């Protein structure tokens, strides 16, 4: 069996993983860095990020770190760790400039400076952007920059299956080289997980097909706790029927939301911020309009109109070209002429692998950064454009921390028994087994259950049904059969494994949500509609156990912003 030794192994080559690789290579030209991903790097989900990245660039024009910090903490419904937020807001401006120096085609003002736009929940227009293709340009810039470092070796289209930990220290990972189907082991002194979120738990989602939470599940099964998984962001404007995102920048650039009576209904829910209130607030308002019968009726059910027609063709072409293109291609609608049909859509995993603000997990040498991690700066609700920013800042931190960690360390070998056991688990027991369940049917039912029981409005009773359903699906999953029995490029095997990962993660979302008897940020319970700081100003930690997640709680770090009522 092939064993590849590398001081640092990074799993995932999205924004966070690429940034980590560059940071590590900048810090030391001596360490060897393996960058593994199941897709080619520029096929990662991050290329879909549209709207932009938040950063304080213009203190002279009235923005400040304190304002960005406060917006983030209030947006998070006070569940963010404030030491991490304070660090984060100070670091992100430099990242924007680095990307500029590395070639990112930031949109510009007339004077040649980097332009910024309005985004939800912000008290200053601080979102830096590259048209409405921000993530695309950021990823390409980082990927291209990463080509300059000889000590970064890429392993594209390698699917990581497991993590090896001994005496609470990480020692490597296993991966299927998709092209050949061979199982390869990476022996490492430090491992950085940067595998992204778990958006595909839901059926109606903005996420790429590849976002199945693999890293979350692999770490969770290996005993690393997941934090705050019950908090899933629903973005207000998913295009019907595909769920493709219509970026918040549509509203940042002046777009309106209207119900079937033509009313800009946000004036009832957030009179000050209107369409630019945070996402949880807007999504709930839209869903309320729909439930109360003021949505439009369409062939795919009720919807709300995202109206850009008053912005004019020129502005739409300059600032929102991708949106126009996508609306035309995927819904047959030109936003210059008619409103876009949208409804709230599953969009972001606030929860993630439990780390401290230095991206360290409880396991020595194991780091997590990007959407896979809960540092936590997003708390119960992430502000738009803070996530790409998080990937850049904490990707860098993880890369640097890993380099410091590996200095003077020795490799601890993955044993032959461990290798054989993994080979047997994957190929004999999983690929080789016969059964009568179709894994894709299980995924479909899982998606339906999540869309139904763990959506924007939740109740204990409904969630109980959801938990039962997930448990039933887990049992049925034991009996799946993978049709494709060949080794080379077996996407059937890979997707069946992804579905297994998702089932475990669904349970952590479900059990965490059921236990939290309050409403905070994106987690809204009709049976407990109030925030309850006395009992619930705390993070959930979910630990793996064969019979289902075990929950523990830890306090939130508060430095200078005391929780207050959240009004917009």
């Amino acid at each position, binding site marked *: 069996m092939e064993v590849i030794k590398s001081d640092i192994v990074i799993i995932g080559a999205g924004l966070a993983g690429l940034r980590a690789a560059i940071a590590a290579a*900048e810090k030391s030209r001596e360490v060897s860095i393996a960058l593994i991903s199941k*897709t*080619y790097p*520029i*096929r*990662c*989900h991050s*290329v*879909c990020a549209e709207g932009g990245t938040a950063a304080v*660039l213009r203190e002279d024009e009235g923005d400040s770190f304190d304002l960005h910090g406060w917006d983030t903490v209030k947006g998070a419904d006070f569940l963010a760790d404030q030491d991490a937020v304070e660090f984060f807001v100070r670091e992100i401006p430099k990242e924007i*400039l*680095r990307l*500029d*120096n*590395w*070639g990112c*085609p*930031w*949109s*510009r*003002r*007339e*004077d*040649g*400076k*980097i332009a910024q736009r309005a985004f939800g929940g912000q008290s200053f227009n601080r979102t830096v952007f590259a048209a409405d*293709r921000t993530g*695309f*340009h950021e990823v*390409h810039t980082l990927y*291209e*920059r990463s*080509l*300059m470092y000889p000590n970064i070796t890429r392993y*594209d289209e390698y699917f990581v299956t497991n993590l090896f930990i001994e005496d609470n220290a990480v020692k490597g990972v296993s991966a299927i080289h998709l*092209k050949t189907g061979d199982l390869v082991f990476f022996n490492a002194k430090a491992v950085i997980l940067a595998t992204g979120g778990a958006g595909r738990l839901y059926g109606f989602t903005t996420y*790429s*097909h*590849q976002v199945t939470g693999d890293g979350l599940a692999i770490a969770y099964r290996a005993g690393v706790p997941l934090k705050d998984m019950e908090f899933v962001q629903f973005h207000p404007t998913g295009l019907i029927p*595909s769920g*493709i995102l219509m970026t918040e920048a549509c509203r940042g650039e002046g777009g309106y939301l209207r119900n079937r009576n033509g009313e800009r209904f946000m004036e009832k829910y957030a009179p000050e911020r209107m369409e630019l209130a945070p996402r949880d607030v807007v999504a709930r308002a839209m869903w309320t309009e729909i439930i109360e019968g003021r949505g439009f009726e369409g062939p795919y059910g009720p919807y709300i109109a995202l109206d850009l027609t008053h912005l004019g063709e020129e502005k739409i072409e300059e600032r929102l070209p991708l949106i126009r*293109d*996508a609306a035309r*291609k*995927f*819904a*047959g609608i030109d936003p210059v002429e008619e409103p876009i049909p949208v409804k709230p859509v599953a969009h972001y995993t606030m929860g993630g692998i439990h780390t401290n603000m230095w991206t360290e997990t409880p396991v020595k040498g194991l780091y997590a950064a990007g959407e896979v991690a809960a540092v936590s700066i997003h708390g119960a609700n992430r502000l738009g454009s803070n996530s790409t920013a998080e990937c850049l800042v904490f990707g860098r931190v993880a890369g640097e921390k890993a380099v410091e960690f590996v200095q003077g360390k020795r490799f601890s070998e993955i044993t032959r028994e461990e290798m054989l056991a993994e080979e047997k688990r994957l190929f004999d027991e999983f690929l080789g087994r016969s059964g009568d369940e*179709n*894994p*894709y049917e299980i995924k*479909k039912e899982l998606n339906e259950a999540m869309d139904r029981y763990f959506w924007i409005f939740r109740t204990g009773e409904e969630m109980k049904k959801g938990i039962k359903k997930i448990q039933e699906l887990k049992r049925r999953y034991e009996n799946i059969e*993978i*049709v*494709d029995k*060949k080794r*080379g*490029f*077996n*996407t*059937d095997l890979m997707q069946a494994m992804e579905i297994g990962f998702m089932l475990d993660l669904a349970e952590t979302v479900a059990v965490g949500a059921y236990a939290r008897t309050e409403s905070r940020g994106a987690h809204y319970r009709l049976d407990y509609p109030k925030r309850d700081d006395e009992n619930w100003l705390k993070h959930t930690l979910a630990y793996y156990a064969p019979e289902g997640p075990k929950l523990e709680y830890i306090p939130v770090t508060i430095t200078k912003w005391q929780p207050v009522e959240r009004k917009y």
Partner: protein
Amino acid sequence: MEREVIFRIRRFDGEKTYWQDFRFTARKGMTVLEGLYFIKENLDGSLAFRASCRMGVCGSCAVKINGRPRLACETQIFDIGSTLEIEPLDNMPVLKDLIVDMDGFFRKHEAVKPYLIRRDDDYENPKELLQTPEELHAYYDFSLCIKCGACYSACPASATRSDYLGPAAITAAYRFCADSRDEGREDRLNLVSGSDGVWRCHFNAECSEVCPKSIEPAKAVQRMRLMSAIHMIKSIFR
């Protein structure tokens, strides 16, 4: 509106190549990619294809549909017809079904130094560089390449010479040469004016024809030729 369609797919299982027909009912608005997923999830789990974003930005899903390279996720089934012949891209080795080996394609992209080169590069203390909207405009459209390989598949020069850099790599080289912040033009011109570079292009412009992002790689190749010609003349007289 619903209608029965046939997906006639050229398959390869690692040993043999064969055509297989799948019939199913498609609805209006359904994309070719959704059709492929429908087949995989309901008719034959072993069908292999790449996809991720399903919104035309990740570049994973380019395949040949009725002879022409297209993004499966951006192509509506009903726009093509009721029988769709689907094949892997050309000019790259097929690994399985619709999946081709793109490692070589990416290596060619790497070879042209597709990154900003600046002498004052300072990692620790980055500074805001100014770039006017006009300067941005000069290269912006060429920065939209998603590396889907459609142009490479359609390129006759890539078909006859496997070492030819191809339209996407040369477009990347041009994108950086045209960026007002860049100082690496010389390096890149040396790289693209060799025997595997811009002079191989036959100017059929099939690449521009098929590019799903309307990038006009042929235009980039043409401009790079002009730049290399000037560069060569200059270096003779230096």
